[in-house]
């Protein structure tokens, strides 16, 4: 038996909202990165679910792309966080606001 596509969408929404709440409320940069990761994966769930639903592989292919992109993003993000830590001795995102203008 197959799970109805609505449940996938509900799951994806839940995961996305958790990620979003993480970005909106957290101050730790690492948690930011994880939250972004959650949102990306929420999108992936959607892509794969609809690909399965339509019997079309395009979604899966894009999910692969997203994963590659996420990996790259994590790499860059971690790099930035490392530099941040080295300069500010902290990974709190509210500290380096002096770099805004």
């Amino acid at each position, binding site marked *: 038996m197959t799970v109805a596509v609505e449940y996938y969408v509900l799951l994806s929404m839940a995961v996305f909202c958790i990620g*979003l709440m993480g*970005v*909106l*409320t*957290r*101050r730790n940069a690492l948690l*930011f990165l994880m939250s972004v990761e959650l949102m990306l994966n929420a999108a992936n769930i959607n892509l794969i679910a609809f690909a399965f639903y339509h019997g079309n592989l395009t979604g899966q292919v894009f999910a692969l792309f997203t994963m590659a992109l996420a990996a790259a993003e994590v790499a860059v993000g971690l790099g930035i966080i490392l530099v941040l830590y080295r300069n500010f001795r902290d990974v709190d*995102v*509210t500290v*380096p*606001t*002096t*770099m*805004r*203008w």
Partner: protein
Amino acid sequence: MVGTGAGPFSYAPAIALFPLAAFVISLVFGRQLPKKGAIPGIFATAASLLFSLWMFATVAGGETYHETLYEWSAGAVTTEVGAEEIAFSFGLLIDPLSALMLVIVSLVAFLVHVFSLGYMNDEGETGLPRYYASLGLFTFSMLAFVYADNLLMAFMFFELVGLCSYLLIGFWFRTKSAPSAAKKAFLVTRFGDYFFLIGVVAIASTFGTVAFAGEESFVVAAETAIEDGTTLFGFDAQTWVTITGLLVLGGVIGKSAQFPLHTWLPDAMEGPTTVSALIHAATMVAAGVYLVARMFGYYALSPTALSIIAFVGGFTALFAATMGVVKDDIKQVLAYSTISQYGYMMLGMGVGGYVAGVFHLMNHAFFKALLFLGSGAVIVLMHHEQDMWKMGGLKDKAPITYYTFLAGALALAGIVPFSGFWSKDEVLFDALIVGLEEPVILAAYAMGLLAVFFTGFYTFRMVFLTFHGEPRTETAEDPHGVGWSIKAPLVVLGLLAALVGFVNLAPIAKVAGMDITFLEYWLDGEYGYVEGLTYHHYHEMVAFEEGYIGSETTTMLLSAGLSLGLALAGAFAAHTLYNVPEPKRHTTKLGGAYTVLRNNYYQDEYQVWLAEGLTLPLARTADLFDRSVIDGAVDGVSGASLFGSSWVKRIQTGLVTNYAALIVAGFIALLLGLGLYGGWF
């Protein structure tokens, strides 16, 4: 009869080019040369003089020359009289008038160069190459101006002599006063030249030509336009000729130091006395009057313009003469007398007395150059003291200077038979006969006549204070000697001042019925002439009526007697007051008038006020306006952008959290908006 390029006239350009070469040589090599550039100058002016005399002789032989040599600029125009092409060119016009003037200019220039050896070199001046170079450039420009065949070329060299005047007045640039006087001289004459340039542009735009002579000249074109009743620039031809004529007159008034643009000339005495003699007495100042003579045919078309010339001339003659009465500086007296004498020439020109005006121009060039050089000799004698009250008794110490100076003074005062008498008398006679019919001219005549008395007075006041009485200072007791280079030019000019008047003995000719008015014949084309540029022709064109008291001869004798009497009266007054061993200042007797005269009728004050009290604050206000309002608007635009961005940029907090929140809020707002628009709810 207009000759073509052949014969002596093909050498005419050299007259001006010799001094130009001297200018270049003195400028480049002056430092290395013996006498610091005086030698090339003397040779060049001597060569110019010889060539000028040659030209004079050729004109006397019945030939004249009118030739375009070099096209400066040309193009298409749309003029009021329909000409479609115009060429501005350099060309020569050698007719009796210019040939005469060439001789005068090159002779005075030559003598001044010689005199400079004694006045500048022997006095150990520095910067002599600059001095001689400027003199060379001046002589070049002046000679080129004299034989210019068109108005634009005349204007160009008119401006260049102004430059040389600036350079030479400011010769002693290390002082404060000389650069200031130089600036003033250039500015005031520039103000006149502004009108002159408008006049040139207007005449060229109207008639499509700026030539002085020939069928293609603007004078002929103007005559035709008046006859045809053409409308020019919205005016009838007669009015337009008057307007343009008066515009050109602006330059004349500036250069010839006529009221109200005369204020620069007394200040110009800051320059070396040789310069005053050459430029500010004999030649450059004469350029204005010469220009009137040169385009007399044009002025002759407009009685209004002529009346204004006459009135300005008469007024200036009197006005300047009164100021000359109270001056203590010998050069200042001469400066005011120069202004006054040019007033006479203008008066003569303005009443149609072309010959009288030119005659006085010639005589004045000689006797005023003489007086200035004489005063230069006095200044050398006195170790550069110019105050007449510190002189006295120089008569016996420097006889040659005294007698030549006296000859000049007699000529200036107009005492028979010295040259000034003959020409001044002719001017006044011409003014009188026209004045008997025209009240404006009569007023001008009256002023000119009254000025004769003052002229006699200040001239002899100067002579008596300087040469007579007891020496009043130690330098006057034991003056510095002067060399041959100072004496020789004085003697030459002294002879000329005494004798040159005999070329046009009009009164004697009338009374005795002899043919001895040579200058009149000369200018009337008895020898050589250019069509349309003769006295005869001018006399026919001038529309003034002439009246006589009794017969012509009685009028003339009356006029001559009156002017001679007044001159003698002035001289006698000076004799009584100042020809005493210990002269005193009598100026206090003048009371309030003295203050006014001493301050030159406050002419300088109001002109300085115009420059410094009006224009400068106006400029400062403009600057303030520019910096605050105009630049303020520009800075305001950038300021407003900066201010706006300083507020907007606060959205950018630097917190990713806030950005994300904004994105979410924006997304929701978009969703809601689209939903409302799409009717989901």
